[in-house]
């Protein structure tokens, strides 16, 4: 829908959706092109938004233990939603199932939505009026909540929220989330220092 308004053809819109399959990057690319940005500037912004998928891949590869030959195919589905659902599963079987089900259903839905949107199908009215824009953050919160087991995770999440929101107005789209990822090494480093100075003290992380 958005891209149809910024001069992309139906074929271009669908190709973008099928091949990139990272919502934030698609919107960024389309937005930058619509604003008159050059192809490489626009692609760079979209690329930054996609970099976080590498971090998900890092975690998913040990969790899913995929055969080497499958990885190039699985890679296309490494996105926020599949990572969140897979990481929330207690077992490897569950994680694999979650990854495939989430990946497949999102891939199909996302591309159908794109097609219908680009075809100019009537929108279902104002989706915001139905509160549907709150579903995204609620899904992420529900997936994040079980991960916040110890103080370390909570500290990382809190710091990441501060960084993500605080830097949003001052840095280009996609970069604040990447900076927020630094909350993870920062908290680990701070914990490491603290436990180094209190060698005999109880270590909360080892629970």
């Amino acid at each position, binding site marked *: 829908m958005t891209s149809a308004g910024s001069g992309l053809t139906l074929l271009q819109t669908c190709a973008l959706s099928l091949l990139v399959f990272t919502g934030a990057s698609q919107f960024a690319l389309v937005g930058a092109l619509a604003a008159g940005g050059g192809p490489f500037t626009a692609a760079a912004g979209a690329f930054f938004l996609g*970099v976080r998928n*590498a971090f998900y891949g890092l975690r998913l590869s040990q969790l899913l233990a995929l055969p080497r030959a499958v990885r190039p195919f699985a890679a296309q589905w490494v996105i926020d939603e599949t990572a969140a659902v897979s990481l929330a599963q207690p077992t490897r079987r569950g994680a694999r199932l979650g990854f495939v089900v989430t990946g497949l259903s999102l891939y199909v839905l996302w591309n159908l939505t794109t097609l219908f949107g680009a075809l100019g199908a009537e929108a279902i009215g104002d989706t915001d009026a139905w509160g549907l824009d709150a579903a995204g953050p609620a899904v992420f919160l529900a997936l994040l909540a079980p991960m916040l087991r110890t103080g370390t995770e909570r500290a990382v999440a809190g710091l990441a929220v501060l960084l993500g929101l605080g830097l949003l107005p001052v840095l280009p789209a996609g970069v604040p989330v990447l900076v927020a990822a630094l909350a993870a090494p920062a908290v680990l480093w701070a914990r490491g220092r603290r436990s180094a100075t209190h060698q005999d003290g109880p270590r909360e992380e080892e629970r």
Partner: protein
Amino acid sequence: MNIWIAIGVTVLGCYAVKLAGLLVPAGVLERPLVRRLAALLPVALLAALTAQQAFADGRSLVLDARAAGLAAAAVALMLRAPFLLVIAAAVAVTAGVRALGG
């Protein structure tokens, strides 16, 4: 033509970073520090994304009905409500607040 170049570059770049994460050798991941870090990175990313989707409009920060919806989701989570109920609570409260306050 420019648009196709932009699409091509984005497709390759986005796919490459997705694959890169999966291809890191397992040996590297067995080091405890890397394991801890790989486990914590999604926490940081999800937390930042949640906050941005709830409180951002483009590049400016806003406090609107979505915040009430997110709060409702948080309450539902604390009450150990099932996943779909959590989402439904967020959607319903957001729509309700919008209908009342515009």
